[in-house]
């Protein structure tokens, strides 16, 4: 239902042109969840915003970027070609592709009640008004596990606790009935017990509604529990993607291996942690060749620093961008 090919995004900044997303390709089938993982600055959120066409005016999409989405009516839409003010884009946002952000306070208007905002989305995308819209809004609030939704619906966002607000935002996104939900770090600001409830809820709702999801997180633990497929991003590139179990248990890219090794685990008390050596370069100083080569212990001399690795198909739905898998040898 969604296929992204060669997505690149560049920004004009005071320090010159930066490329937060470079040549990203992935596909998503109906009802499936893709986890997008990476550290800050890896381009996760920019990718999500590109899909919703929410990038600021200083951003440009690369000439070969393709974002093909098949809508509810079975029609293929080239998202990259929609004009920013087009009706089709407005229909797409919310009704076809919903989005949840990390900070729920920023997504609700403080001057309207929760109910006002949810019924507005329902009226816009589902054509229901008045009592019917209100009934559906109450139903959605109940579905996301908010107790006494008849009372909560008339409250203002600031009167809800953080966890409740995040759940109300999920209700808001879902009440428009999207086929694809993009969730950008939806549980990062929450306590673990609330996070567990929200994850449980999202998995349940996804089953009920048959909705596809792009779940963005820096937390591989969360991704392991919600996604079927994972894409690991580093400096704007997907370095590896594949089914979640295979990727986490036998990572193919040195960066993925480093990232997994750096995670503190509850089932292993080691005292010492294993950071990925080096630091993420600044976005304006993107290394040539493989973006990870300056930090990579296995980099091949004469190759990784000069040539950008092409995606290699490892079979079983796994793709990696790394010269170690192309049969290259060090050039002396």
């Amino acid at each position, binding site marked *: 239902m969604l296929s992204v090919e060669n997505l690149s995004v560049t920004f004009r900044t005071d320090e010159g042109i930066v490329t937060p997303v470079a040549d990203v390709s992935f596909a998503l089938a109906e009802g499936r969840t893709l986890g997008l993982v990476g550290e800050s600055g890896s381009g996760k959120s920019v990718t999500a915003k590109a899909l919703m066409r929410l990038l600021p005016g200083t951003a440009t999409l690369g000439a070969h970027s393709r974002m093909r989405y098949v809508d509810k009516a079975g029609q293929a839409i080239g998202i990259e070609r929609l004009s920013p003010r087009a009706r089709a884009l407005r229909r797409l946002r919310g009704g076809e592709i919903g989005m949840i952000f990390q900070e729920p306070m920023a997504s609700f208007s403080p001057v309207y009640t929760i109910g006002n905002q949810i019924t507005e989305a329902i009226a816009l995308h589902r054509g229901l008004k008045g009592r019917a819209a209100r009934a559906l809004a109450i139903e959605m609030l109940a579905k996301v596990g908010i107790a006494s939704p008849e009372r909560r619906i008339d409250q203002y966002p600031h009167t809800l606790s953080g966890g409740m607000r995040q759940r109300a935002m999920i209700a808001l996104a879902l009440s428009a009935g999207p086929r694809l939900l993009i969730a950008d770090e939806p549980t990062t600001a929450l306590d673990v017990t609330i996070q567990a409830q929200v994850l449980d809820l999202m998995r349940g709702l996804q089953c009920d509604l048959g909705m596809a999801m792009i779940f963005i997180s820096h937390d591989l*633990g969360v991704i392991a*529990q919600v996604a079927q497929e994972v894409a690991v991003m580093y400096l704007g590139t997907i370095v590896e993607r594949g089914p979640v179990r295979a990727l*986490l248990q036998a990572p193919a890219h040195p960066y993925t291996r480093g990232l997994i090794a750096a995670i503190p685990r509850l089932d292993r008390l080691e005292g010492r942690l294993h950071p990925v050596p080096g630091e993420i370069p600044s976005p304006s100083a993107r290394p040539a060749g493989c973006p990870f080569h300056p930090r990579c212990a296995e980099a091949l001399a004469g190759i990784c620093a000069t040539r950008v690795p092409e995606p290699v198909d490892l079979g079983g739905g796994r793709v990696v961008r790394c010269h170690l898998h192309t049969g290259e040898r060090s050039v002396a």
Partner: protein
Amino acid sequence: MNGPLIEVRDLEVTFETGGRGLFDRRRAPLRAVDGVSFDIRRGETVGLVGESGSGKTTVGRALLRALDPTAGQVLLHGPEGTIELSALAEAALRAVRPRMSLVFQDPYSSLNPRMTVRDIIAEPLVATGLLRDRAEIDARVREIAARCKLDLEHLRRFPHAFSGGQRQRICIARALVARPDFVVCDESVSALDVSIQAEIVNLLHELQQETGVSFLFIAHDLSVVAQISRRVAVMYVGRFVEYAPTEALFFAPRHPYTHALLSAVPQPDPDLGFHPDRLEGEIPDPSEPSPGCRFHSRCRFARAACRDVVPAWREIAPEHFVACHFAEELDLARARP
């Protein structure tokens, strides 16, 4: 193991809320910390976990006398005797200040953008009057900066040019420059990416080995706390529910809340499964304290006694403290390895 450095007895901190405003709706004072007792040994890291609003930060601040406890005692033991921190007057407190410090969560807002890195790190020495000679201050700043793996060339720069990890190393250098006995790290690695987080955790560990400083490591991320702490305390709505050596707390918890918290942490392995304990019911409001156990409204094992009687804080195994009426009988054996 060394003897205690900090000893906390029945610590209470209450905040006045509301009142005097529109229509003067005076509310009951909020009991942020309600009778907490524990100790921290010399050279030890104690982890303090709990959800937002549980009172973790308030405990940290009260130990440093960044706010005044309402009741109870905080004692600081040292070679020259024991000082009752909680009772010191302002002047006497100033003399003790260099022995304690704090590392904040946000390495962006906790560094003054108009000061050089050198001046930021030197500030505790200057403010407390510990060192007055410029050359001596410089020498000490360079020494601690090198230990915190900062490039000495960077000391002349301003903090805006640095990454999150480097900034946090600056904050740590500042916290340790006066050779404190005790540092509170309040969510000090929570905002960092996992790789940088690992680096900072290792750095804290090394610095502790070298200097023998004690840490109170406050965090909501249990996995990080598990790696860095020798003992861990779990806090729930103003009270400690469990305090135990790390292994015991994570592999054989005795309080249902500790178990619920651990079960809610997703692990990066789909085969480990994810079956969080269901926590139903509302978190109690700390300004309307109920009798009995604070956790009873959400506890799946709650019985009549839990509603009415406050569970005693008791040691059920060496160094393993718990506040649950049924700690001995409940079978909380963790399904995970």
